[in-house]
């Protein structure tokens, strides 16, 4: 559906995007995830045709659209700032692209009503943007972007200007609308939760380059670079060596425990040692060690998160682990001694394609 090949964008002396390639299948929802300045919006703007790449190409199906004007690419775009036309009502905003495309009056009216219904905005048809809330404006922007039935929808941080509650309800609507209309979507976001919850596949970017492309599960549980492991969710790197008993276990000090390693990590392990990234939910806190000799740590502080208690545990001068005790009521005292058990409750090893 969309194929981006070796896209590079140079602004004077700085490279915003370098050699970016990705394939997007029809109906897929892709999230471009990265911190600000990672080049994700630049990629989106080049796909939309609002920016010319320095080199590389954009294909829509078999058509090379790199030099095609935005309006001839048949792409819908939702902007972070909504970018609604302030002098037009919600209905007229949605109808604008249809008028430009010379749809008949009846077809336009029918399509506008249909989109207002999908976005649950029928009662706001004659409102001006300034009379609507942020969430409503963004829904109008979504409806406007979808108006002329574009096969591809681009979303530039569509939810980040909204408050938390609206963001979550709009997130669900977005996913629902995207699925119902079978539109291919590419969304730029810096919010990892948004990316993981909405996307079929996530492209993690940093400094203009792709760090990893994968399903949300892969990106979260099997980060391929140190950046991904720390940017997507919370993770603490710890150094491990081979357990040396022929098993899949790794050893951290005296503590040997089973852990599924990537191929790269296995290679490094064979060379002496590697790092693994421990997520808060992989840590279990014990008051006394078992026969496996769990390492001892000291509680720095704990905080109540609602569904869990997050505890920061100092293991050594360099390593401070974060542990989420689910449903935990007991608050841990600073200075208290605990023993940490590490559990690999990520994907079932049988499901991990890289282990086959």
């Amino acid at each position, binding site marked *: 559906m969309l194929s981006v090949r070796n896209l590079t964008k140079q602004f004077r002396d700085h490279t915003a995007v370098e050699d970016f390639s990705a394939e997007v299948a029809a109906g897929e929802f892709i999230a471009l995830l990265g911190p600000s300045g990672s080049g994700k919006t630049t990629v989106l703007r080049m796909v939309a045709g609002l920016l010319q790449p320095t080199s590389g190409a954009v294909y829509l199906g078999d058509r090379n659209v790199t030099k095609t004007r935005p*309006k001839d690419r048949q792409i819908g775009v939702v902007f972070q700032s909504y970018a609604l*036309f302030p002098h037009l009502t919600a209905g007229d905003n949605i109808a604008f692209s249809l008028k430009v495309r010379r749809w008949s009056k009846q077809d336009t009216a029918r399509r506008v009503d249909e989109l207002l219904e999908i976005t649950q905005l029928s009662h706001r048809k004659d409102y001006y943007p300034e009379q609507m809330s942020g969430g409503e404006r963004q829904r109008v922007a979504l409806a406007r972007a979808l*108006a002329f039935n574009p096969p591809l929808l681009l979303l530039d941080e569509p939810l980040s200007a909204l408050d938390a509650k609206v963001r979550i309800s709009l997130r669900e609507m977005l996913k629902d609308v995207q699925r119902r209309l079978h539109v291919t979507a590419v969304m730029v976001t810096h919010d990892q939760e948004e990316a993981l919850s909405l996307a079929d596949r996530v492209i993690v970017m940093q400094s203009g380059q792709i760090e990893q492309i994968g399903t949300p599960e892969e990106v979260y549980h099997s980060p391929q670079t140190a950046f991904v492991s720390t940017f997507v969710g919370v993770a603490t790197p710890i150094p491990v060596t081979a357990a040396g008993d022929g098993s899949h276990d790794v050893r951290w000090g005296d503590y040997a425990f089973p852990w599924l390693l990537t191929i790269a990590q296995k290679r490094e392990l064979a060379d002496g040692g590697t790092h693994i990234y421990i997520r808060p939910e992989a840590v279990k806190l014990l008051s006394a060690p078992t026969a496996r000799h769990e390492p001892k740590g000291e509680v720095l502080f704990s905080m109540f998160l609602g569904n869990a208690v997050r505890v920061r545990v100092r293991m050594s001068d360099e390593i401070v682990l974060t542990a989420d005790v689910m449903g935990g009521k007991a608050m841990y005292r600073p200075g208290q001694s605990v023993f940490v058990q590490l559990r690999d409750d990520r994907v079932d090893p049988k499901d991990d394609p890289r282990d086959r």
Partner: protein
Amino acid sequence: MKGWTHASQGARMSVRRRFSWDQFSAVATLIPSLILLGVFVYGFIVWTGYVSLTNWNSFIPNFSFAGLQNYINVFGTFRFQSDLRNIVVFTALFIIGCLIVGMGLALLIDQRVRAEGLFRSIFIFPMAISFVVTGVIWSWILNPGTGVNLVLKAFGWKTLPSWFLSTTIVPNITLGQIQVGIPLALLAVLIAAVWQMSGFAMAVYLAGLRGISDDIKEAARIDGAGAVRMFWSIILPQLKSTTTTIVIILSAASLKVFGLIYAMTGPGQEFVTDMPSLNMFQTTFQGDQFAQGAAIAIVLLLLLAVFIIPYLISTLRQDSSS
């Protein structure tokens, strides 16, 4: 709760206090300008209104009541009827000219040209020149015998325009004592006036254009709008309040126009370039028809009010809503 009680007591105390240096100094600084405005603006408006209803039409003051006789006399003259035609034609064409030229320049400069500041200064600079100077310069340039006509002649033009000396009125419909239409001599004056004030329209439009976010323009491009559609459907509607502001300010400048006409053409043959302000000045101070001059002044004030009052109402409404 306790803090709240304290705060409201404090507020009540300050209300009860009889004398505040803060308020006193605020009022004291306003008083001189209030007095000056009161006497020299509003006082004289009232005085002019009063004089226009008297028989003071000679060198010797005569305050006997004349009713609306001065107004009837004024409206009955060929000269004043010409003035009304001229001021309407001049104001309409002046505003349209400034809006079109100003918008054109603003759109060009908004393309992020090099040396943008230089061009902006060049276009806005005529505004700094006095209307009298503009009038003199353009009366030289458009002088039928020695000005731009020499250039046109060199290019082989046969019928050279007589510019501000023309007495032709197009389309020339007889109404009352005068011919209604566009006096061609006014077009020469309009060239000078538009040259002087379109830079102002450009500056205001440029600020308005910069206020339209790039996102909105990009959204319109994505939706398929070309340059022409973008201008008429997206940009121009968003500059509505900008346009209103320019129209109000230019119409005030236009209705009061005096120096430019006085220096460039004067009333002109058959009053083709005469204006109410010029008529008022000559009637009052050269003809000593003080009451009649006052009547012209009041008509001019009412004409201005037609433009200014809606503007004041809309600004007041905006202020109270925000």
